[in-house]
C-alpha cells in the first residue's frame, strides 16, 4: 500500500492558485523529497495532507485513507514538522513536551532519547529558544510517538551543519525502522543525500518524479581544469566558461573515455565530479525557459 497517494489535487484560494494539478505516490518505507521554488505549492500540499486546509478537488490518501476529516485517526500515525515551528512561548520546553506526550498518550522514553540526541535544554522557556532550537523541539514533537509517516516541511532550515547532519542521520535511522518520510526542502544537497526519490513541483504542478539512483546515473559530470584551457575538444564535452582561474566543462559521456582523453594533457589540477541536484534543476529550468 502507498503511504501517500495524491491524485489530481487542486487548491485555489479564491482566485489565486495554491495547487494546480498535483499527482504523486510515496511508497511505504521510502524517503521522498519534495522540492521546488517558493510559492510552488509545497506547503499547500503538505497542509492538505495534514487536514489544515481543504482541497478544492482531487484526492489525497494516506495509507489508503482519504484525509478529509480524518485528522484524529491519521494524526495517530503521522508526525508533522511545520516549516516554522511555534509552541507556547510562555511555557518551559519540558511542559510543552509533557503536553504533547500526554495528549498522544505515549511513554517518555523515546522523547527523552530524542532530547539527548538533539541536545535540547528543557528548562528554558520556548520564547527564549533560538529558531534552530525551536526546530529541534518541533522535531522531537514530530518523532516522539514513533510515527509510521513523517511529514516534514523544511526540516533542516535554521539548523547548524552539525545538527543538519544529526537530523539526516536520524531520518535514515527512522527509515530503517520502517518509517516513511515525506519532506519538502529548499536544500537540494540535503535531498540528494537523504532521499530515495524526489519530485519537483513548479507552479502548482508536479513536473517530474525520479529516483535518486537513476538521476545519478543519467546526470552529467562537471569538469574544472587549471590552468585555463577553453579549447578541449571531445565528444559530449561542452565548454561552459571560466570560473576563478579554472575552465569549466560539462560532460555527458563515458567517464573512462574522458579520463583517457584528459591524460594526454598536463594540468595543474583537475576536479571531476557528479553534477549536484541544484545543477540538474538549473539545467532543467533553463531548458524549460
Amino acid at each position: 500500500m502507498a503511504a501517500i497517494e495524491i491524485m489530481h489535487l487542486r487548491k485555489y484560494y479564491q482566485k489565486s492558485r495554491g495547487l494546480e494539478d498535483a499527482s504523486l505516490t510515496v511508497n511505504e518505507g521510502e524517503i521522498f523529497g519534495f522540492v521546488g521554488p517558493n510559492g510552488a505549492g509545497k506547503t499547500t500540499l503538505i497542509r492538505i495532507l495534514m487536514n489544515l486546509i481543504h482541497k478544492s478537488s482531487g484526492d489525497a490518501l494516506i495509507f489508503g485513507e482519504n484525509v478529509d476529516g480524518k485528522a484524529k485517526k491519521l494524526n495517530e500515525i503521522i508526525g508533522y514538522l511545520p516549516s516554522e515551528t511555534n509552541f507556547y512561548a510562555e511555557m518551559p520546553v519540558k511542559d510543552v513536551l509533557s503536553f504533547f506526550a500526554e495528549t498522544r498518550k505515549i511513554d517518555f522514553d523515546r522523547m527523552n532519547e530524542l532530547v539527548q540526541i538533539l541536545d535540547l535544554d528543557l528548562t528554558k522557556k520556548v520564547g527564549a529558544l533560538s529558531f534552530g532550537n525551536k526546530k529541534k523541539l518541533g522535531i522531537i514533537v514530530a518523532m516522539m510517538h514513533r510515527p509510521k509517516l513523517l511529514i516534514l516541511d523544511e526540516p533542516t532550515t535554521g539548523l547548524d551543519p552539525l545538527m543538519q547532519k544529526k537530523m539526516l542521520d536520524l531520518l535514515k535511522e527512522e527509515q530503517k525502522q520502517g518509517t516513511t518520510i515525506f519532506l519538502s526542502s529548499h536544500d537540494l544537497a540535503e535531498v540528494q543525500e537523504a532521499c530515495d526519490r524526489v519530485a519537483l513541483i513548479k507552479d502548482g504542478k508536479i513536473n517530474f518524479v525520479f529516483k535518486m539512483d537513476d538521476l545519478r546515473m543519467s546526470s552529467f559530470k562537471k569538469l574544472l581544469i587549471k590552468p585555463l584551457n577553453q579549447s578541449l575538444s571531445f565528444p559530449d564535452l561542452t565548454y561552459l566558461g571560466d570560473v576563478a582561474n579554472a575552465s569549466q566543462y560539462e560532460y555527458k559521456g563515458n567517464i573512462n573515455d574522458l579520463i583517457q582523453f584528459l591524460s594526454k594533457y598536463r594540468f595543474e589540477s583537475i576536479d571531476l565530479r557528479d553534477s549536484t541536484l541544484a545543477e540538474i534543476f538549473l539545467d532543467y529550468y533553463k531548458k524549460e525557459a
Partner: protein
Amino acid sequence: MTFFSPSLFKIEFRRRFIGLLIWSLALGASMYLVVILFPMVQDMYAAMPPEFAAIMEQFGGLPTNGLEYFSTEGGMMFQLFGALYVALEGFNIITRDERERTVESIFALPLSRTQLFVTKYASVVTNILLFSLINYGFSLIGFIQIGEDINMGDFTLFFALTTLMFLVIATLSLSLASYLKVGVKSGIAIAIPFPLYILYIISTMTSNEILKNLKYITPFTFADPVGIFKADYELPWLNLIIFVLLAVSGFISAMICFKRRDILI
C-alpha cells in the same frame, strides 16, 4: 467518541490563567471597594439637599439599601467590564493559536476539530464561571465587612444571570471569530458587548415606547441588575430564551465553520 481532551483543556486553562487572574482581581477589588464605600455614600445621601434628591427621583430615586446601591454602581460596572473580558476570551480562544502560529502543531495532534472546538469552549466556560465566582466572593466579602444584611437569593440570582449573559456574549464572540478569516485582530470582539450595552442603557433611560423595545435585542436585559433587586421583579423569559437560543445556534454554526476552517498562517 469523545468530544473532550483533558490535556488540551489543562494547557488552555493554564495559558489563560494569568489573564483570568488579572481581570478577576482587578474587577473584584473594584467591586469590593464599591461595596465598602456604601456606608459613606449613605451619609452623603442623608446630607443631600432635598432639591437634588428630587432630581434623583427622575432616575429611579436614591438607593435605600445595599443591593439597590450595588445594582447601579457595582453591578453595572461588573457587567460592562465583564462583558468586554468574556468577549475577548471567546474570540481569542479561536484566534490565539492562529495569531501565535501554534495552530499547526496543535492541529497535528490526534484530536478531531470537534474535540478541539469543544475543549476550547469548555475552557472559556470554566474561565467565565471562575471569573464570576471570584467577583461574587469579593462583593460578598465587602457586604460582610460593612455588616450590610443583603438578600442572598437576589444577590446570587444577579450573579447567576450575569454569568449566563457572559456565556451568551462569549459564545457570540467565539462564533464571530470562527466566521471571520484567519488574521482578524481580536479588538473586533468588543463590537459585540459595547453596542448591546448601549442598547440596554438607551432602553432603560428612555421614555419613548419604541426605544424601550430595544431591550429585547440585548442580553443585558435579562440580567438587568436594577430590576433583579426590585421587590416586584419578574424574569424577562422571552429575552432570555431568545439569547440562549441565539447562543446555541451560534455555537453550532461556529463549530461547523471551525471544522471547515482553512488554517492559513
